[in-house]
Each structure stands twice: as structure tokens, then as C-alpha cells.
């Protein structure tokens, strides 16, 4: 146990008994990577919780300053490795905004297609991991099985299965393979059928409901106060989605709902993602109908040297608001490259909501926030 940062002096519980300090992580089956939680326990009840991050720090924002703009898209795959396409999207948009370039319409559609497919992947993994955290092992395998289908689609367009590096400044790297549309339609049918299974296996499960309903409630005030974003706030009743409210790319052409729920407990956060997944499938279907042959990349200079200045782009990644802040000094490398990582900011509420819950609920709440350590530590 390292003594730095976390105050290890004995905290007494209300009856004057000594409490126990439990070091949860960085090596722990369900802290989603290398998050460390310093928990002060009174029996099974949490008296104090302190998340400790930084075990996966790779200095990516600093590294970005030594890379060209195009290379930064490749590196953005590694921020949140679960949804690389969405990271690509944000970075590409930021650079384009800086340059004043607009991607051709086909590229825009393809980008949205990829971003939404990746949202499906993310929510599928969330489904699996969340159920796994609560002890339902089978759901994990189901989540991964469905993810595999999308990964194969991604592989067919980008050649990679995890770090796709598919987006380019001004468009996308390659055109879609000829059978991509057909395969995606098959996937959507498959996915819709499977969603019913999930409801039977997990959503309507009595024990699952018992574990999640009323657990880890985030109030509206807390959501705003902690500057949370994404599915978490929508589950707490704040209907705010950047795709709708501060639309980017061509999201305004599509007809989709932003689901919102009221309670803000673990179950609502779970359910909201399942609803969002259905909306994503709807968007994907619309994109597939609108796709027409055309250019996939705009004319962009080989060496990108944006004018001196700054650009800020907000996107809705599956985990929340993913924004890129870019400062250029006129050279080929960005002067400053800042990422507003949704996982990092969403994690901050943990300290507040964990007080008074049981050890088992810590896992449930942490799982329901849906974090990726790659994005938190960068």
C-alpha cells in the first residue's frame, strides 16, 4: 500500500470502532483496467472512497504536440480503445474546423455510420461488463459475440480490429467494400433479434433489478455540478445530447430520439444505453439508405499547417462529451492538443456517491458509469 495521496490515518466509525482500509485495484477483476479505489470500510459499508488514477498514463496530450496532424488521428485510436471511431471523428472534425475544410457528403455519411456502429460496440461491451460486474457471466459472452460482428465490419473497411485509424483529415481512408451495406443490414436484423434475448436474460431478471434499482442515484444537480455528460445525465433526466443540441457533421439530417429517464440509478443508466443502442441502429439504417456513390475525401494539402489560432469541437462519444481543443502556432504540429475525456470527468462523481453504499454496489456504480482507463489517464 503506497502512502502517498491517500490519507491512511485510522478513521473511526460512528460507534468508535476502527475502520478498514481496502485497496481496490489497480489489479482487480472489475475496476475496468487499472483504476485504484481507496476504500475506507466499516464492515461492508463505505465510509470514504478515493479514486486514484494515472496507472495508464502515457502522456498522450504531450505526445500529440510532437506529431503531425494526420498522425494525431492515428493516436486518437488509443484514447478510448473501445470506441476508436468516435475518437477519430472528434479529432478529424477539430482539424477540419481549424483548416476550414469540409468532408464530402459520402464521407460524412460513412463517418456517422462508423460512429454509430461503434456506439453499438461500446454499449454492447457495457452490457457485458456491467452484467459481469453483477455476477452474470453469460451476458459478457453475449456482448462480445455481438461486438465481434461489428468488429468484422470494421475490419473489412479499415483492416484493423481495435485501432481502426480509418478517418482522415477531410474524409475517410478507404471507400466501403461492395458488400458492406448488405452485411450491415444483416447485422442490424441480427442485433434487433438479440436485443430481446438480453431483455429476457438481464433486464427483466429479478436479481439484476434488485441489484441495480435505487442504487447509486445521481441527482440532476450533481450531474450538472460535476459536469457529467452522456448517457449518465440522460438517465438522470437531463435530455442533452450533443448530436441533437449542438449538432455536428450531418447528424441533423437524421431522425432519432434522445431517450431520457428519470431515476438516475444504476438500472436507468443500464436501460438508457439499451434504448440508445436501438436509436443508433435506427440511425445506421437511415445512413445506409442515404449512401450514394461519390468522393470520400476532400482535397487537403499533404503537409497540414493550419493558421495560427485555436479550434474546439464537441462530439457525443458513447461515453459522453468528447471534445478536442486544438491550438496551432502555424507549424506542422499542434501547439496544444487537449482532450475533454468523458470517462475522466464522469469518474469524478464517484467520490461523492460511493459514501454509504456496500462494497458490491461500488462495483455496480463504477460499472454503470462505463469508464475506459485509456481515456482517463491518456
Amino acid at each position, binding site marked *: 500500500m503506497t502512502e502517498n495521496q491517500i490519507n491512511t490515518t485510522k478513521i473511526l466509525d460512528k460507534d468508535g470502532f476502527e475502520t478498514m482500509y481496502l485497496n481496490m485495484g489497480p489489479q482487480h477483476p472489475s475496476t475496468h483496467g487499472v483504476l485504484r479505489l481507496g476504500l475506507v470500510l466499516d464492515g461492508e459499508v463505505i465510509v470514504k472512497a478515493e479514486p486514484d488514477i494515472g496507472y495508464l498514463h502515457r502522456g498522450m496530450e504531450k505526445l500529440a504536440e510532437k506529431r503531425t496532424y494526420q498522425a494525431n488521428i492515428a493516436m486518437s485510436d488509443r484514447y478510448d480503445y473501445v470506441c476508436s471511431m468516435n475518437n477519430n471523428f472528434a479529432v478529424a472534425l477539430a482539424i477540419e474546423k481549424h483548416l476550414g475544410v469540409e468532408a464530402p457528403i459520402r464521407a460524412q455519411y460513412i463517418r456517422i455510420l462508423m460512429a454509430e456502429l461503434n456506439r453499438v460496440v461500446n454499449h454492447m461491451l457495457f452490457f457485458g461488463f456491467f452484467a459481469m460486474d453483477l*455476477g452474470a*457471466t453469460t451476458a459478457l459472452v453475449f456482448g462480445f*459475440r455481438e461486438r465481434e460482428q461489428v468488429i468484422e465490419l470494421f475490419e473489412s473497411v479499415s483492416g484493423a480490429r481495435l485501432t481502426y485509424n480509418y478517418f482522415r483529415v477531410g474524409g475517410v481512408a478507404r471507400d466501403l467494400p461492395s458488400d458492406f451495406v448488405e452485411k450491415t443490414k444483416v447485422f442490424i436484423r441480427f442485433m434487433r433479434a438479440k436485443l430481446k434475448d438480453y431483455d429476457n436474460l438481464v433486464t427483466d431478471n429479478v*436479481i439484476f433489478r434488485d441489484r441495480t434499482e435505487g442504487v447509486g442515484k445521481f441527482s440532476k444537480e450533481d450531474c450538472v455540478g460535476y459536469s457529467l455528460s452522456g448517457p449518465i445525465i440522460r438517465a438522470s433526466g437531463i435530455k442533452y445530447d450533443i448530436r441533437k443540441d449542438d449538432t455536428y457533421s450531418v447528424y441533423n439530417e437524421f431522425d432519432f430520439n434522445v431517450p431520457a429517464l428519470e431515476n438516475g440509478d444504476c438500472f436507468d443508466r443500464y436501460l438508457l444505453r439499451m434504448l440508445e443502442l436501438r436509436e443508433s441502429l435506427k440511425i445506421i439504417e437511415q445512413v445506409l439508405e442515404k449512401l450514394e456513390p461519390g468522393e470520400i475525401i476532400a482535397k487537403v494539402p499533404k503537409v497540414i499547417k493550419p493558421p495560427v489560432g485555436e479550434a474546439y469541437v464537441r462530439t457525443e462519444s458513447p461515453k459522453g462529451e468528447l471534445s478536442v481543443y486544438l491550438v496551432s502556432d502555424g507549424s506542422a504540429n499542434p501547439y496544444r492538443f487537449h482532450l475533454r475525456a468523458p470517462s475522466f470527468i464522469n469518474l469524478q462523481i464517484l467520490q461523492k456517491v460511493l459514501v454509504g453504499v*456496500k462494497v*458490491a454496489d461500488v462495483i455496480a456504480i463504477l460499472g454503470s458509469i462505463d469508464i475506459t482507463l485509456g481515456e482517463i489517464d491518456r
Partner: protein
Amino acid sequence: MSSNYGLEKVWLWGVSLIERLISWLGLPYIFAYTIEKIIFGVALLVFIAVSVLYLIWLERKVSAHMQSRMGPMHVGGWRGWAQTIADMVKLLFKEDIIPSKADKWVHRIAPIVVFVPSLMAFLVIPFEKNLIVQDLNIGILLIFAFSSIAVLAIIMGGWSSNNKYTLLGGIRSAAQMVSYEIPLVLSILSIVMVVGSLKLNDMVAAQSGDGKFWFVFTQPLAFILYLVAGTAEVNRVPFDIPEAESEIVSGYNTEYSGLKYGFYMLSEFTNMLIISMVAATVFLGGWSAPAWLSFLPGVVVLLIKTYFIVFILMWFRWTFPRLRVDRLMDFGWKILIPLAFLNIFIIGLRMVVFKW
């Protein structure tokens, strides 16, 4: 009563052979008795070891097929049947690590304390009418008495490892197993009331034959209570709180490695076998079968019933999430125990009023 005697004939023939041999040698009967019990005991140990190895393999296959996977496929040729043997050999050769701050003696003894009682419970289970180590008149009580010792071992393991996760696991298991023992015994109590005996053979006799039904049909509530409490007693999902992997890493056995860990794992599956076998004996008619199935040896009948229950337990495990500690205690004390008392009351009323 149907005549499901297969292995029993062989056994009784062997027994008479030994007895004749001993009397020919002019030795007292106690020698014959000892030799018989030793042979039976060794045979039983082999049976348990093989069943448990098979159960672990089965668990992996069942889970795999429920999750649209294949499970172990390579070791041994046919469907990876030798996977568990390979795993056990690997555990055998692993370094045995005892944490430096552990309470060394308790840490060493705990795996034995957990494994031996789970074997002892097999003493009173009738595989066939006379195929039983010792048909004690306190049969079912003995099984529960031995299975409660396992709690002690788990606390010993959890406490002595000097690790906070194992401690949490140990405390959780103490709370859980002590409180679930009550509905477990109470659910059997209604059967004991009807049968009027604690002997397992009497219970089988009360369910087989004309005009008699299995207790699962006459006392379904008792069966459900037994199954739920039994699942909790053997620490399986949805009651696997003491070893909740995603919460407290591996619970009480986190600090164990090598064969000691293997003992914990084996005893877990042995306990599952016991719980299923008792369920098969007490509720599903044990080794007796309907007349049209009388060609099957009693052992086979018992094993079919046992594995049916085992499959149900596995099914639970791969379908349900895990309960939370406080909800688990609530469930045990506020739902299961009142229901068990209600069940006893109903059965008692039925016995008094309807003489049934």
C-alpha cells in the same frame, strides 16, 4: 418396492466372501467388518474424486454451451475430457505460496478442514439399499453436521491469509452459511416428520412402491426451499457472495495456490455433489425407480437424479447475477425461514387432519 439392485449384489457377494475368508482364518468378525469398510471407503473416495473431476469438466462444458462457446476441446481427445486432470496436475506442480504474514498453521490446516467433512457426508448416503458405508439412524443430521464444518474452514482460510479480501470473504461466508443452514435443515424437517426417521434409507422407502409419491410432488415447497438454501450452502451463484469474483477478487481463497487451492475447489464441487445427492435421495426417491425402469441398477438411477439436480445448479450459475450481501441476509431470514416454518406447519396440519 422395485428391485433396483445391481451393484449391491456384487458388493454383498464380495462381503460374504471376505467374511468366509476371515472365519476360515479363525479371526474375529471385527476384522471382516474393518476390511469391508476400508474397501468401501476407498471405492467411495475414488468415486468422489472421479465424479468431482467430471463435474468440473461438465461445469465448463455446460457453461460453454450456454454461452455459445465450445469449452475445453483438446486435452485427451474427445471433447477435452482430460482437461480437469491436466489442470489438477498443473495445480499439483505449482509452487505452494504461504503469505509471509499469514497465520501459517491455520493457513495450512484450512484446506484439509474444508475437504474432509465434505467427504464424510458421503458415509450415510445409500447408493442402493445395502450399498452404504453405514446406515446410521441419524443419517441426514450427520450430513448437515458435517457440511456446517465447512464454514469453519472457510473462516479459517479467510482469517489466516491476513488479506483484507479474504477476510471479507470469510466474514461473508460465515454470515451466509450460518443463516442458510437454518432453512436448509427446516426444509428437510418436514420430510423427517412424515417419514418418522432420520435414516436416508427410510426416506427412500417412504417414496418408492405402490401408492407412494416422491416428496418433490407431495412437498414441493420443501423441495424449492431446499434447493435455494442448498445453492447458498455450497456458495454458488446467485449466492456466491463469499467468493464474489468481481467484488472481492476470489474471496476466502484468494491467497491460496497450488494444491491447497485445488482442495478448496474440489471441496466446492464435492459439496455440490452432496447437496444434489441428498436432494435426489430425499426428494426424488433416491436409488428407487418406477417399475418400468427397474432394469437400471440403483446406482445409475441415483446418479441420473443427482446429475439432474447438478445441472439445475449449473443452470442457475450461468443465468443469474449475484445477490448483494444485505439482500441475501434479508432473503434468508425474512423469506426462506418463515416459508420453511410455514411449510412445516402445513405438513403438520396435513398429517394431523388428513392422516397423510
